């Protein structure tokens, strides 16, 4: 579903990504972790073409992201993205947040878009909040609306960039539950997170990034028990405490 081949990226002289290689198969969930500044967010942004990269290739569902002929707007409709700070549109209700793209991009009727949005709100467990503005929702509720907004485009892939790190502990679970549900339901997912419980439960692969490179990868639990590099061990000790 996603092939990342020898991708390198620079911001001026500063190299953010160093020869990154990764493959995500259909239906898989890959968890990405690593210290701050290691390039995790940048990697996600390269996958849906929000950031250009200078070297290498990324193929999403058979389409090359860096090919100038690729319609990036179209490509992005296939890839949902969820942000750390939710990024709901503050001047719209939850329902309007969800229906905007289906109406403007997919040209669905308001009625059709709203019906689908209500189903998604039920799926994330907050249908009663449809007409609330984001500022009136808790962090956990906002993040669930944000997930529903991404799902409304019926993407083939979902990317999450630290979706729970801005949340109070009691709200983390309600968001993770939705994500576990998606993962077991067969969605292809790339999740940047330090929630190792989540990683253990659903990840087919866990990769560890440092200074722009993937320095460790493992399937499930082995990753935690015998990390190969001291850097990884150090980091895992900190987040698993």
């Amino acid at each position, binding site marked *: 579903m996603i092939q990342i081949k020898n991708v390198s990226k620079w911001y001026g002289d500063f190299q953010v990504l160093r020869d990154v290689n990764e493959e995500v198969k259909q239906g898989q969930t890959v968890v990405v972790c690593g210290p701050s500044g290691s390039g995790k967010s940048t990697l996600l942004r390269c996958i849906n073409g929000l950031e250009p990269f200078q070297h290498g290739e990324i193929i999403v569902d058979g389409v090359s992201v860096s090919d100038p002929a690729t319609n990036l707007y179209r490509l992005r409709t296939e890839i949902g993205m969820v942000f750390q700070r939710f990024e709901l549109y503050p*001047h719209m209700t939850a329902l309007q947040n969800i229906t905007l*793209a289906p109406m403007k991009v997919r040209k669905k009727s308001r009625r059709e878009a709203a019906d689908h949005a209500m189903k998604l709100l039920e799926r994330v467990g907050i249908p009663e909040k449809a007409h609330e503005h984001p500022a009136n929702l808790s962090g956990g509720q906002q993040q669930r609306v944000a997930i529903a907004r991404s799902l409304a485009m019926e993407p083939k892939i979902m990317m999450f960039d630290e979706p729970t790190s801005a949340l109070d502990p009691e709200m983390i679970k309600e968001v993770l539950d939705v994500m576990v549900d998606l993962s077991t339901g067969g969605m292809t997912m790339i999740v940047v997170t330090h929630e190792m419980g989540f990683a253990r439960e659903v990840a087919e692969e866990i990769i560890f990034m440092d200074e722009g490179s993937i320095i460790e990868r493992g399937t499930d639990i082995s990753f935690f028990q015998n990390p190969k590099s001291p850097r990884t061990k150090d980091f895992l000790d900190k987040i698993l405490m």
Partner: protein
Amino acid sequence: MLSYDFDWSVLWKHPYGRWMLEGIWTTITLSSLAFLIAVTLGLMVGVFRVLPNRITRLIGGSYVELIRNTPYLVQLFFWYFGLPSLLPQASEKWIYDHVPSLPYWTGVVCLGVYTASRVGEQIRAGMISIPTDQYQAAFSTGLTTYQTYRYVIIPYAIRIIIPPFTTEFLTCFKNSALTMTIGVLETTGASYLIDSYTWHGLETTTAASVVYIVITLCVVLLMAWVERRIHIPGMIARGR
């Protein structure tokens, strides 16, 4: 007992009443036209200052620093008395003699250019307060750049910018009074002129003050209504 004889009739007696009304009309049109320039130019300056381009940022930044850090009155004199003296003497005289309503249009341009530096700063502040992730969230759902600005960024930015815009308009409106120093007969100028004929400055300046207060209140009420109409539930209004 005060020896001052109040005579409010100077406000409507011929020809003073007409002067007063013309003054009010001049104040309204002059400050509105100036604000129109301020918004257009300010939008450019504000956008220039946030673009990822060193040259536009330098232009925008210099403009703001130059205009904001010199007194508005000096700028008014510069535009009206200073600039034309660069011209050959014959054409300078011709301009003062033949360009109709020269003080008025100089006032419009000068006030517009001055207010633009302030408006530009407000626009810049509004734009940089929208996080880049907000743009990216919109793009990630497949919206085009145009759609992102049209449905997400601009409606959001307008709500951030309206309260400071109201303040800037009112400042512009009151600053228009200074154009009397280059001979514009706006509300303040008219009240001063009537005083010089009638010696009833107390009445005329009181009337001028009332005019400013009434118009200011109307604008404030109108903008409060607009703000209520577009208020985002749950979001606390930003202070002025």
